[in-house]
């Protein structure tokens, strides 16, 4: 059983839901990322998604694009990201899951990526540009390494295909709330609850919802139909303000408070 599986077994036994914040590695620097990982774990986040900055993220809206650009412009390299995760992962209880483009994984080599990711203590990966049809080889190796390759299902996915994807996904299913890119949205799509209800009937795997989720009210709405929530842009947006020690401390506090609010709303 992978670290991600264990989290959901525990949560389900307690009748609770997962909150999973997303942060970008290296925005504005890796020390701040390390502080965020510790802080988000300390307030009780159940899993943490760590975005590996990429030059051409086509599934991301302006907030996460800008964050990736800041991280890359600051000179964030993969070596340093793995090194930082390696230092911090033993201190945090929450499994850390990477969000990483297949362009990066392929360049490193899938074996080398898995070796370094698992050595650093990453528990899984969400690979937004590796649909299930292209993932067979990588998925088999992830399975062997007890490393959760989390697959995505979207509103444009047909029912038959959703069943196939659910069979292949490990850890949980990432349900994308809208046909679109990442970014905060005030209103969730009206058909979201219905989509989740029908997906629930197709699979036993935990279902976490992401894209557009940004407010406590969203958590309350989704609590009955989802096993967890993923929030990215609403957190990453705040990182743009980090400049000096004062703003570092202030932003860290804001992010922790926001995460606490969301955890309470979903509890």
């Amino acid at each position, binding site marked *: 059983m992978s670290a991600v599986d264990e989290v959901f077994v525990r949560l389900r036994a307690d009748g609770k839901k997962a909150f999973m914040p997303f942060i970008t590695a290296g925005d504005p620097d890796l020390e701040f990322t390390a502080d965020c990982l510790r802080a988000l774990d300390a307030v009780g986040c159940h899993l943490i998604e760590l975005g590996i900055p990429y030059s051409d993220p*086509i599934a991301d809206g302006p907030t996460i694009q800008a964050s990736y650009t800041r991280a890359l412009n600051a000179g964030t390299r993969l070596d340093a990201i793995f090194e930082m995760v390696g230092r911090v992962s033993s201190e945090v209880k929450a499994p850390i899951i990477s969000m990483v483009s297949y362009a990066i994984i392929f360049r490193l080599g899938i074996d080398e990526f898995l070796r370094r990711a698992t050595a650093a203590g990453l528990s899984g990966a969400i690979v937004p540009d590796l649909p299930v049809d292209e993932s067979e080889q990588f998925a088999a190796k992830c399975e062997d390494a007890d490393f959760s390759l989390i697959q995505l299902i*979207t509103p444009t996915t047909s029912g038959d295909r959703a069943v196939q994807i659910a069979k292949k996904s490990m850890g949980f299913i990432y349900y994308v709330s809208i046909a679109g*890119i990442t970014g905060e949205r005030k209103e969730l799509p009206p058909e979201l609850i219905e989509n989740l209800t029908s997906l629930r009937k197709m699979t036993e795997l935990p279902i976490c919802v992401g894209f557009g989720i940004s407010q406590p009210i969203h958590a309350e709405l989704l609590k009955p139909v989802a096993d967890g929530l993923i929030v990215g842009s609403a957190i990453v947006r705040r990182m743009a303000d980090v400049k000096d020690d004062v703003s570092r401390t202030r932003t860290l506090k804001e992010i922790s408070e926001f995460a606490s609010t969301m955890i309470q709303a979903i509890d």
Partner: protein
Amino acid sequence: MFGESAQQELRPPVTRPAKEFLVSSRSDTLAFDLSSSFSSQPSSDSQLPDAKGRFGKFGGRFVPETLVAALDQLQSEYEKAQGDPEFQNRLDALLKDFVGRPSPLYFAKRLSDLCGGAQIWFKREDLNHTGSHKINNTLGQALLTLRMGKSRVIAETGAGQHGVATATACAHFGIPCVVYMGEEDVRRQQPNVQSMKLLGAEIHPVTTGSRTLRDAVNEAMRDWMSSVVDTHYILGSVVGPHPFPKIVRDFQSVIGRETINQSKDRFGRLPDIVVACVGGGSNAAGMFYPFVAETDVPLVGIEAGGRNSSAGNHASPLTYGEPGVLHGSFSYVLQDDDGQTQDVHSASAGLDYPGVGPEHSYWMSTGRVQYRSCTDAQALQAFDAVATQEGILPALESSHAVFAAMEIARSRTPDEIVLVCLSGRGDKDAAEIQRLKKEFDK
């Protein structure tokens, strides 16, 4: 710099040994010995891509799940259209009456005399309506848009040629059209920006990244992520996820099919060598694909060598890059060791792209096509030569291929035929070329 001295260099009679080919290549030892390596190619290449969109190991579909259903729909609708004579008749009629096909095969006599070797012939895609080969694809994809019942079109553009061709097709059919274009390209390709607006298209300048073609593709893909249900993305080159590389190649293949027929009519045989420029690679794929089975005819693709061969100064993934994933496809790319896309440079906005169509990567791997790159300065030299010797302003993109053709022609005999795809006209580049000349003079 390239003004007077280039003219001198181009003056006949200049005889050069074949090995002195000036452009850069991955395997220098090959030079231009193009006689031997083509006989053993399997003819089954024309059946590619396979069901998963692979040309050998290249191609595929590396996209977010949100886009998979739309790509499946496009593939199935395209397959139906291929089997529908009505669709083909409609496209053929448009290509004839609206585009002006077939485009002529033209003997560039004074240019050939200048080089003092083989005959240089142009396939005149620059004479198509809208001034380039791009219209061959946009009309086909606009017809597919109607078949799929989609009501809006988006497109990316670099030089603006694909943007103009998409805006034109959309105006023709009355489909609303949004074109994404990097801010840097908006600056250097103003005439095309104006044309697109006059044709009723909405231009979205892209301000992220290097503000060129790659960023325009990113933005178009992001739009499509949100609009996929009612919008078709008319991708302009043989890049991107399956089935785009196949569809665009097929629509562009009219270039190569016509060239084969025209060559048989004019020469009683096929050309001795065929040259085309490669950015994403759509004019080259359209020209080469029908020639792939004609293994006696060497094929040469010319990438943008930019300023020099160091990272960030060129746009030649086949010459200098590595296999990797970009924009939904596995092909040669220009990336750093972490898999981040590198900045690229070319004076030509249409070639200023860090990736290339997967079928080109495949053709390079089998040796069926040889790829080289030539620099900004060399392309400008060729531009000048074609302008002053032939009275044709070639696109800067096509000028890359012309430069290579001139070099090849010099080492050949007058009975040989070097055929170049003149993929577009250069009116759009006039202002940018003036600016570049000043920059070079400094």
